[in-house]
């Protein structure tokens, strides 16, 4: 009895703790921080922070303000503020949050959605780090495009200024020699070079115009 009472006052009133051996199945709602050292399955809705400790396992649809994950989470997390996967964190599921921090060592499989990225100022480099992960997946298709069709593939991949270069290329290619069909291919093989190559033809064009005026 005494042992049961002594730990109770030591824990702060504002925090809920699910101990290591405790297993909750069902729906959990609350307006305070929740520390999970045990197991929670089902659904978790909090107005504050969910902390999944190293020993904690959460298999649930999670809707919180903040989440700090050092344990295991299987399920989707919707956070109004931030989600942090620490070094020990393991997660499978999608994350919807304006701020997402994935630390080196963390394991994660799923989608990341930071909301309206276009209107978001790039505040912290740490907030942008998670982007390469989702960006890495759409990357393969653009690589495949240039192999199929060289010029049309280059247009959507490159920003607006790059569109000028391909326009010039087709003009030159048919005019000069159809035999040089190989030339457009190398240009498409090195998509990183166009900005440098672009500058040269533009200058060349200007010089030509001047020559015509003279």
């Amino acid at each position, binding site marked *: 009895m005494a042992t*049961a009472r002594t730990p*109770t006052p*030591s824990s702060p009133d504002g925090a809920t703790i699910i101990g*290591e051996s405790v297993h909750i199945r069902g729906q959990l709602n609350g307006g305070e921080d929740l520390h999970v050292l045990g197991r929670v399955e089902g659904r978790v809705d909090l107005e504050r922070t969910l902390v999944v400790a190293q020993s904690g396992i959460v298999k649930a649809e999670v809707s919180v303000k903040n989440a700090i994950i050092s344990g295991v989470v299987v399920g989707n997390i919707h956070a109004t503020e931030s989600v942090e996967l620490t070094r020990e964190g393991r997660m499978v599921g999608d994350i919807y949050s304006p701020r997402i921090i994935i630390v080196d060592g963390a394991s994660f499989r799923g989608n990341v959605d930071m909301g309206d990225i276009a209107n978001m100022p790039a505040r912290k480099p740490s907030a942008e780090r998670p982007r390469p992960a989702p960006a890495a997946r759409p990357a393969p298709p653009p690589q495949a495009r240039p192999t199929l069709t060289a010029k049309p593939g280059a247009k959507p991949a490159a920003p607006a200024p790059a569109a000028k270069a391909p326009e010039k290329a087709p003009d030159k290619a048919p005019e000069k020699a159809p035999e040089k069909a190989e030339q457009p291919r190398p240009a498409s093989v090195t998509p990183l070079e166009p900005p440098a190559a672009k500058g040269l033809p533009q200058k060349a064009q200007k010089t030509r115009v001047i020559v015509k005026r003279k």
Partner: protein
Amino acid sequence: MANTVIGNTIVIDGEISGDEDLTIRGTVKGKIALSASLIVENSGTVEADIETKNVEVSGNVTGNITSTERVELKSDGRMVGDIKAPRILIADGAVFKGNVDMER
């Protein structure tokens, strides 16, 4: 730290099981199965069938309690349901409606 606490604003609808003491200050509906002690504090509300070793009720409990050791209804405890336990204590001021079974 390791002790499990369900805080004031927490509402759980479902099943809780475990091998350690559980303190409830919020609301739990469904079922509770513990091999240790359950403490329902003043602010706690439990609408559940409870199976534990010990139970200490200072808050509200609706449901049946089956305990292997003892059940204690404190003076500010309110309980509706049946209690089955070898030792049952009901303090002066406690509110209780239900059956009591002290058979071992």
